[in-house]
């Protein structure tokens, strides 16, 4: 008697599940949205005009506890300009085998250039591939902007760091 009751209870569970929404999704065709503060793969952001926000200060590399970031910088000129100020990152590499996605780099960045994005689809087949260079990290040029390097009017970009606003979110 007791056994039947138990079976019935089990069947009920099974039956009730048949009407639940499935939790699995058809990845990779379907992708689950991430939370607002999800820390995925880094992106190097651009200004609306297409210039890179990164100024090559290497504070992200200094803050990185896993020593995953390597930055080298060089000087902008008005003929070959990557970022608004004097300095830009001529080399920017993140080793994703080392990265622990702690987000310290994001905190350290004085220009809000590096942001941990939504992308979690990281896979590589060699150690070399795990090192993402700047071209892979930069976001696409926004509409109306121009790709870098740009040639700009002399004397227009004189500030080393553009005036920043406090983040709103």
């Amino acid at each position: 008697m007791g056994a039947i009751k138990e079976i019935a209870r089990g069947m009920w569970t099974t039956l009730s599940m048949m009407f639940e929404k499935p939790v699995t999704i058809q990845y990779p065709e379907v992708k689950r949205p991430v939370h607002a503060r999800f820390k995925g793969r880094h992106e190097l952001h651009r200004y609306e005009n297409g210039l890179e926000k990164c100024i090559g200060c290497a504070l992200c590399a200094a803050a990185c506890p896993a020593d995953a970031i390597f930055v080298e910088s060089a000087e902008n000129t008005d003929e070959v300009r990557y970022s608004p100020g004097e300095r830009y990152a001529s080399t920017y590499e993140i080793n994703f085998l080392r990265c622990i996605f702690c987000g310290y780099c994001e905190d350290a960045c004085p220009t809000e250039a590096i942001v941990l994005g939504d992308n979690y689809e990281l896979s590589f087949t060699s150690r070399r591939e795990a090192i993402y260079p700047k071209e892979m990290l930069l976001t696409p040029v926004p509409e109306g902007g121009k790709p870098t390097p740009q040639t700009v009017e002399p004397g227009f970009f004189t500030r080393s760091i553009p005036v920043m606003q406090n983040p709103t979110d």
Partner: protein
Amino acid sequence: MTKQITLTIDEKQVTVPQGTLVVDAAKKIGIDIPVFCYHPKMEPVGMCRMCLVEVGRPVIDRTTGQAVLEADGTPKVQFGPKLETACTLPVSEGMVVVGMSDKVKAARKDVVEFLLTSHPLDCPVCDKGGECPLQNLTMAHGVGESRFNYDEKMHLAKHVPLGELIFLDRERCIQCGRCVRFQAEVVDDPVIGFYQRGRAIQIATFSEPGFDSYFSGNTTDICPVGALTTADFRFGARPWEMRATASICAQCPVGCNITFNIRREAKSDGEIVIKRTMPRQNEQVNETWICDKGRFAYHFTEGKERLTAPLIRRGDDLTPVSWDEAIEFVAQALRDAGSDLLTLASGRLSNEDLFNLRSLSDAFNGKTALYTHMAGGDLTAQVGVGQGTNFADLGAGSVILVVASDLEEEAPIWWLRVKQAAERGATLIVANPRPTKTDRYASQKIRYAYGNEAATVLAMINALSAKRPELPGKVQATAEIKNAAETIKNAENVIALFGSEGLGLEGSAALAQACANLLLVTNHTGRANNGLIGVWPRANEQGAWDMGLRPAADLKAALAAAKMVYVAAADPLGDDPALAATLGEVPFMVVQELYLTETAKLADVVLPALPFTEREGSFTSGERRVQRFYPAVLPRPQARPDYAITGEIARKAGVDAETDSAARVMGRIAASLPDYAGIHYRRLAQVQEQWPIVGRGDLYYGGTGYENKQGLGVQLAPAAQQGQAPALTWPQVAEIAVPEGSLLAVPVTVLYDQGITVSTSPLLQTRIPQPYLTVCPAEAQRLNAEAGDLVQVSLGEQAVKVTLRVDENIPAGVALAPRSLGLPIFAPAAIQVRVAQKATV
């Protein structure tokens, strides 16, 4: 003995010599009084007001002259109403300094806030960020938030080139004047100055070229903010990302202690490279300074064209081979040549390299030749400066004699040290055919004709009547010469520096002998702060003499006579195209080099060596201080250190030699050369506390130069100090015949020449002049030429075209030919000059 003063700073007692400034006294007991404008190597000015402290002085009863006591018996101390600047205040007995009170803390906060009102806070992109005194002192003493309205900040130019080497960021400058004062006070090149006034003050240069000084790089070290940066390092790396390695500058015989900052670099395929050169403190050698050549010329070690493999001649071509093959090939050639071997090496090599070369050559009874234009290193080993010599100890009572040397061009830091000694009261006697910058500090100046160098010094001895060397007829013992002789005779200490202005081998040998005689006759040898110094053309030329290498009197003949020539770190053909035929005839030639030089192109075997930045070794400076350098970066694959190459060849040829490490070679040197007895690498790495303290966490105090943790080196005792006074021998100098219509061309040294160690540095290229010849206005007129004309210089069979310069300070009948600048003139020689092309106006 200076009077000692005891005072109290922040409740700690300290006793210091009278005249010490409060800021230095505090430093000595580990109390940091923050400063911006003060620098321990410069006169205090009290401009920045960062070092304000409370100062109390004991109350003295005017009637009795005794200190007034408190009830408890301690001296009564009265504090002034205003804060005082610790950097301008000399200590006084019983003084009480308070640097930690609320009043002082508030004052520091106030001053930092003022400074930051006009500072851009662009630390993320600033080269100084991370080693910036303003950053540090703001963190320590500043306020968290600025009350200054951002819109009211001055926005100024951020990229002002002060010449090609140094950049100015006007916004970052805090007007402390360290750079301006360094240029005016320390090196007497006031080519940067303040422009405008008040808040608008800026640093400006009006010299041509901009910031025209051999010492300009030092201003970037002592700048307490990122206002002055070098073009070489601009945005090169963040300071915390780099590692520091110790080295010795390989450019001149001063032997400045340096630090290379290194880091991986993407454009070098991830290799570790040198990012910048910084001074490393050695108060006995270079204090905390280095010259711009030392700072910027290291690039010669990193050329892409460096040799990558041993090469052996197969027909017309040099073909890469394995090291084993190359070494076997050379060893076989050695065995074949036997005593017909000539080893030719220069003072660019380390002691260890030169010792192994010499040992190898000796084993075969071969000849060795030092590749140089200057002689006298045997004499500097005998009567060189005594152990314990330090230019910093020279002052009143000391004499420095500088003969035949444009010291600032030949050895800038020695020039600086001699200048400072003269300012401390040392008598500087300059003997040179034409005025040089050294003359500014000379108490006595002697002018002689080119060719009379040795005779002029002999005339001094003659004037003392102690010995009576015969003088060439035309040299008179003038009043100046007699006066100088008398001064030298009566001096407590005498250091004589001889250079190679207008001299070749023969002339410099005679001059060295004459100077040695003068020191011997006046009893100025064999003790500290006395003796002879050669201003050698290369860093380790003294070491080469010590290792037993001697220049060949007739290099061409020596080359012609040899069956095998082993050339290391020398390019005779590149320097003198006239040697082409001779070298072409040499049956077997080995060249051990960094690059495929003109000589190497003719070689049968070319062996790739390592520069000093990629290996260990030691140099012996002109003051005979043996100093170690360390590997800074990884060696290029396939290249090997010179001592190891030579050692391997020696072993292969059946000669016992040390190859494993430079330290072990030094062991052999110490065992076989009495002067080097007791020298070993650990001893060379010993350090002592130095003053002023620089390079620690307190960057604001002495600048960003490095503390010396890797060795101050060991100064050798000359023979005279070991009780072996050499005998006097009197040099003879043949007169140079100058036919009618010819000019006497004399070689002189300029700092930035076309030598491989300068011309390969892109930054210095703009400062290297076009090949030129200088004559006096009268000669120019006689040649019907003007400054700027292209002239053809005929020298024996050769003819070279160079630009003509005119200088009224040059004697008539003479033409100055700078070395390594297009003209193959190594000793005074007669030349014909005619205009080839008029300058276009």
